[in-house]
């Protein structure tokens, strides 16, 4: 494609010619690679709408607006992937969980670390991919003390010569992709009120879409669009409250009657519960340019317990379709009305056109926390199917007439009552970790947990000098005794094509290629390649720390296919290791202490980027 070919042809030739000689020279030669800034020097701009189609690059964490995380590259195949080797590595020097996807734009790779959210650019055109620039946003250390979970960051986004990312302390920052100089900084979230930002932005039609985290602290959730050029707020859509705050107007046409009415964001809450009602937007956003709709999910209601918030608690734990220009809501569907289990609805919606019952349907697939794989008509919000993709006993699926989740009464948590064997546990069957979809196989590759939980009475605890009681939640392996899996799901048939069981939850993303290879990482640190059609293990490499990042695939300036992933255990599931928690305390790490007590003997913390290629094995 146009934008790529000119600098890349030059880069490829130069690299090919230079390599043999340069490799004998002193390292100083590489420190100022000629022309490295030129490729992104403001004169070359890139609209993500176009760039997302280029399989050589990876310009947004989900690869494309459809969030398929599918790479059309096919140099690495099921036949030769066994010869994959490490090309280069980079240590971030940080010990929190590394969830971000690296990006590749032209011959530069971009990477955001966990708190303190340093952004690096690497010159892929030079041997060893030296650092081109780095940017330190210097968030205050206090942000650590008030953040909810781990100090993760889920990645940066690229558009028109700029890199966009969020900081834990609530800023969205635009950097000049060529130099790393800040173009604008917009303060959006107030860490002093428990509001943080951990999600990766999505840039659509010149707008940077970002959302907040912190439902546990009584934060009211929102999605905000910023002007990509100036950083000014264009619109903000809240997840609770009056229709005018939620940007619900005359064009709002939800499919199900239970989502229709005036100011449901108020009336489905007791009193003024909506004011601190949660529904934060810390997950993924997709976009369909043809329908001109952005899709994203809202998190669980908070900080109220279920019995304190009778009602559906709209618009939490569901998904919105909105116009990117104005933010106005077009449809909404609630995956977990009156959520009982901390089942945020923020997982990505993977967009595809599939033939279902003889008809081509524009659908969105969502592997939800509640254990159901939703296939939804993305034009209307109608649920076409919702099938469990693992063992679920806390709901009986969806009533397709009403669209409502069918609850199971005796699994509902109640204050002071012990409830055992709730499946899935609070992190759900699939938490933040993104799926991938191959148009070649028609399969969705779901990294997930197989965990259940017990809810028991808890000893007195203390927050800000205030004692309270609640429940201690203890997670444990689900049926079968394993704690994670990668499931290849056939959305048309509504059943798995294959399942690979893993000892620990698969907290990393997956990626799938035109070579029919699926890549994912395990919490022990194995980076694995499996056959996309059978799940057969083809290759694995043991990284330095457990993997909870998002693998990506790109074409290097040398014209060859590369796979990159961050290793660095952590996140909610890995907090036992990153925070050095006591594995004897089953409730440590909000319930993961019991389920993953052996994780500390399986891996240690520390962030490292690994880049693999066939190298001499081609």
């Amino acid at each position, binding site marked *: 494609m146009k934008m790529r070919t000119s600098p890349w042809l030059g880069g490829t030739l130069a690299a090919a010619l230079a390599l043999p000689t340069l490799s004998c020279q002193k390292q100083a030669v590489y420190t100022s690679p000629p022309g490295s800034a030129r490729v992104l020097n403001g004169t070359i701009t890139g609209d993500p709408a176009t760039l997302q189609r280029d399989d050589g690059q990876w310009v947004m964490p989900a690869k494309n607006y459809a969030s398929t995380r599918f790479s059309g590259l096919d140099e690495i195949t099921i036949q030769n992937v066994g010869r994959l080797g490490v090309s280069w590595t980079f240590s971030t020097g940080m010990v929190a969980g590394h969830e971000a996807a690296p990006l590749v734009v032209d011959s530069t790779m971009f990477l955001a670390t966990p708190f303190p959210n340093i952004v690096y650019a690497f010159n892929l055109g030079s041997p060893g991919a030296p650092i081109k620039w780095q940017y330190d946003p210097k968030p205050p250390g206090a942000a650590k003390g008030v953040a909810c979970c781990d100090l993760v960051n889920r990645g940066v986004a690229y558009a028109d010569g700029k890199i966009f990312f969020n900081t834990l302390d609530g800023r969205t920052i635009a950097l000049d992709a060529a130099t790393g100089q800040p173009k604008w900084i917009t303060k959006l979230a107030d860490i002093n009120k428990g509001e943080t930002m951990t999600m990766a932005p999505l840039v659509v039609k010149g707008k940077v879409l970002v959302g907040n985290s912190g439902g*546990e602290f009584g934060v009211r959730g929102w999605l905000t669009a910023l002007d990509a050029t100036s950083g000014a707020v264009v619109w903000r859509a809240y997840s609770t409250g009056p229709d005018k705050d939620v940007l619900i107007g005359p064009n709002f046409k939800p499919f199900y009657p239970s989502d229709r009415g005036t100011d449901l964001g108020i009336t489905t809450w007791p009193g003024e519960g909506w004011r601190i009602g949660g529904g934060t937007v810390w997950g993924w956003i997709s976009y369909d340019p043809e329908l001109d709709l952005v899709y994203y999910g809202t998190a669980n209601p908070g*900080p109220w317990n279920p019995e304190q918030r009778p009602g559906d608690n709209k618009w939490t734990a569901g998904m919105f379709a909105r116009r990117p220009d104005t933010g106005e809501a077009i449809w909404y569907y609630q995956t977990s009305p009156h959520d009982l289990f901390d089942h945020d609805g923020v997982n990505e919606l993977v967009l595809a056109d599939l033939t279902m019952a003889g008809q081509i349907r524009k659908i969105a697939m969502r592997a939800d926390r509640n254990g159901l794989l939703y296939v939804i008509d993305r034009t209307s919000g109608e649920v076409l199917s919702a099938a469990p993709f693992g063992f679920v006993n806390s709901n009986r699926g969806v009533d397709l007439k009403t669209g409502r989740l069918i609850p199971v009464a005796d699994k509902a948590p109640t204050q002071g009552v012990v409830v055992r064997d709730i499946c899935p546990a609070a992190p759900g069957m699939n938490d933040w970790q993104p799926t991938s979809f191959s148009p070649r196989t028609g399969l969705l590759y779901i990294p997930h947990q197989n965990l259940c939980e017990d809810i028991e009475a808890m000893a007195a605890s203390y927050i800000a000098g*205030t004692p309270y009681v609640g429940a201690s939640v203890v997670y444990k392996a689900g049926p079968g005794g394993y704690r994670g899996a990668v499931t290849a799901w056939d959305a048309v048939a509504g059943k798995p094509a294959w399942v690979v069981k893993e000892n620990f939850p698969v907290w990393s993303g997956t990626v799938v290629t035109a070579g029919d290879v699926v890549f994912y990482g395990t919490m022990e640190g194995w980076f694995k390649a499996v056959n996309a059609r059978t799940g057969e293990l083809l290759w694995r490499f043991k990284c330095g720390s457990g993997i909870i990042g998002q693998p990506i695939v790109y074409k290097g300036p040398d014209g060859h296919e590369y796979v990159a992933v961050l290793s660095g255990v952590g996140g909610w599931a890995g907090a036992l290791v990153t925070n050095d928690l006591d594995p004897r305390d089953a409730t440590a790490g909000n319930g993961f202490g019991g389920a993953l007590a052996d994780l500390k003997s399986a891996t240690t913390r520390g962030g490292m980027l690994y880049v693999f290629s066939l190298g001499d094995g081609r």
Partner: protein
Amino acid sequence: MRRVFGSLLVVEAVLASASTSCLKLAPKPALRVCADPNNLPFSNRAQEGFENRIAELLAADRHARLEYTWWAQRRGFVRNTLAAGTCDVVIGVPAESDSVAATLPYYRSSYVFVSRRDRGLNLASFDDPRLPKLRIGVQMIGDDFANTPPAHALARRGMTANVVGYTVYGDYGQPSPLSDIVLAVDRGDVDIAVVWGPVAGFFARRSEGRLTLSAVSPQRDSPSLPFAFEISMGVRRGDAALRTALDDFLRRRHVKIDAILDRYGIPRVERL
């Protein structure tokens, strides 16, 4: 030689015992306290809280200089302070806390009803028939089924629509993040609030007599839902020597500690 407490003071202990002539030169041992820098009435960086006063009393008693590790008292507080070894004592923890080793309790307080004196409500029970008609402020903790006892007590009586939630986190960018719910009663935003005693007692004092408190009765709504809690000091699990030393201090100086609590308006309730 004076008994030195705490395993992390080993260096000083060795220095001090090496030679009596060195005793004067040995650095004064440190009392290392883990505390929230913005959490009145308990503590703040300006050391204006009652826990700061108690820490000073303890330091003087131990002939130690007082050092603080400041960290917001939220999830991760113990992990990042006491458990990380940067400090050795948390001045206030629930006696039943299982994340630290707790000393003997040194006071016992209760959630209290806070209302305007001029309203004449005199309300003390969640079963009072007037309660469902009042606008009630209550403190909220977060999700995962953890919340303050009054929040649970109201919900189980079906009172949700007339309840206004105030997060205990408040606005940490302002001084006294915990004060909001008490000030809301004074302003008339809510008719009544149910607040942890030390918070209510301290901030009610600033209302120049406009606010009145009454302890929630009975002290327990169900076996799993107490309204009264005993408060202890906390040390690292396994730090038995320090815990014994603190128990000894609490026994000897309880009159002085009570005087500090009185001075800060901290309401106490007797064990039933």
